[in-house]
């Protein structure tokens, strides 16, 4: 029972990181019907930025803040510089550009920092919390991870629901034609979506790197799990991406915990299994509404 609690809590903590990546993918998908393969690479790169700031200033929070800002800038610049020219061209063009961007960012990180694993600091002690004498399997930092992603997600949800900018983004995502005909500058909305996605990716990168170490490919597997979470939840659904992330995080945590020494090697397989099962019963993801998309 204690084990179960531990696995669940640590699964939630990791799941929130998958959720952040998933949500970043959903934001871009909704605006442009494009899967951003560079999302992990962008997150990795902004984490290096944080690493550099922390090294020079000695302040974790300065690094944290700069990483998020760098994520916003990188997202917007990537969209304006390399994605925008491919809009209106065959869809595969933009997909290949995102893969190119990924290779570019990982290559650049490799040139600047080499391939070695670097340890990245955590905001809080990573000593396990206890309830009385029972270890909970999570640290204060894990709690911070979950809280930070949750807070960011809630802020975004409120922004989408209650602000004019949020309404513009939703309108553009649901019906580009009507949005443009109503005077909404959809191109700007798309840039904003990329900027927010960059922010979420940067958050995920900073939060996950204390556990995974930082190296040019360090976000690859996180990207894959984040993508899986997004598909499980339904690529169109921000809420679904969070639920998908949590589901996946907890499931992988159980797999890693209960399947013994092989468990951690099997996580990818478990993720694939969940994906297949979900897609068999809900081809558009758990949170897909009735099919309303028009051609």
């Amino acid at each position, binding site marked *: 029972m204690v084990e179960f609690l531990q696995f669940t809590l640590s699964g939630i903590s990791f799941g929130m990181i998958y959720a952040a990546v998933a949500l970043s993918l959903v934001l871009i998908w909704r605006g442009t019907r494009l899967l951003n393969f560079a999302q992990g690479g962008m997150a990795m790169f902004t984490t290096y930025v944080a690493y550099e700031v922390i090294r020079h200033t000695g302040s974790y929070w300065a690094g944290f803040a700069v990483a998020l800002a760098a994520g916003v800038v990188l997202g917007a610049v990537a969209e304006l510089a390399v994605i925008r020219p491919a809009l209106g061209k065959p869809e595969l063009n933009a997909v290949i550009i995102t893969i190119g961007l990924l290779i570019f960012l990982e290559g650049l990180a490799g040139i600047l920092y080499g391939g070695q694993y670097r340890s990245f600091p955590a905001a809080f002690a990573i000593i396990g919390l206890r309830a009385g004498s029972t270890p909970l399997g999570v640290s204060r930092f894990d709690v911070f991870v979950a809280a930070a992603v949750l807070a960011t997600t809630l802020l975004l949800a409120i922004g989408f629901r209650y602000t004019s900018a949020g*309404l513009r983004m939703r*309108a553009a995502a*649901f019906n580009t*034609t009507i949005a443009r*005909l*109503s*005077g*909404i500058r959809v191109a700007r909305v798309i840039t904003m979506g990329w900027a927010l996605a960059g922010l979420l990716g940067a958050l995920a990168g900073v939060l996950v790197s204390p556990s995974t170490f930082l190296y040019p490919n360090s976000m690859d597997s996180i990207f894959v799990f984040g993508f899986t979470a997004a598909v499980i939840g339904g690529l169109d659904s921000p809420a679904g991406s969070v639920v998908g992330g949590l589901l996946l995080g907890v499931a992988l945590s159980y797999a890693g915990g209960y399947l013994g020494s092989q468990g951690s090697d099997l996580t990818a397989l478990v993720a694939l299994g969940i994906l297949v099962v979900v897609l068999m019963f809900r081809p558009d993801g758990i949170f897909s509404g009735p099919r309303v998309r*028009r051609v």
Partner: protein
Amino acid sequence: MNSPAGAQGVQGVHRDGAASLAVVDLVAGYGEVLALEGVTITADAATITAVLGANGAGKTTLLRAISGMVRPRGGQILLDGADRTGRGPEDMARAGIAHVPEGQGVIAELTVEENLRIGMMSWPGIAWRRADRAAALAEAYERFGVLADRRRKLAGTLSGGERQMLVIARALVARPRVLLLDEPSLGLAPRVMTQVMDMVVRLSRESGITVVLVEQNARGALAIADRGVVLNLGRVVAAADAKTLAADVALRHHYLGF
């Protein structure tokens, strides 16, 4: 014809009132196919112009070109005499041209009120005051009571007639100078169709909006229009007062099917 005095905007939203629209020698198409081969149409301020013709005559392309959805290959689009040719739909909307495309006027995934608020996106930046927004919504709900009852419902749950009401209400909120309507009566029951047409008339008369109305239902359209234009294969074959067109038996038989 001069624009009538007293064309009022929603409180606080200042556009220049009704505008005349002129399309001069417009050429537009898709790929190798030309849908419009030199179309000239003028719509005086605060009038209703019906654009009629068979399928493939170029009616929808004409509206799409005016609203910037299709880039013209030649000719000019003048709003109150100012050249707007080649602008994108966002700019056209902000210049005061509202285009309601056929059969897809509402965003089904948004609530009724959110759909109405979309109408404010083309407002000049200076008009973003909370009171103005509230006033515009209140005015729309006052005119369309059925929408007030459903303001929190998703637009996708509305009936066809209610959706068309919502589209027109949104146009009212947007305070356009020119309203382009593509087949607003398509798929509606006759009674609802009459309501929609009445609304179009009121919108034009009371709010001083210049309406360009594309319709398959030529008889109904000519009944409410000031002028009619008949397109055939991308060219204007007739343009006259609505009454004159409706009385032209040969033209009706040949192009309008009634």
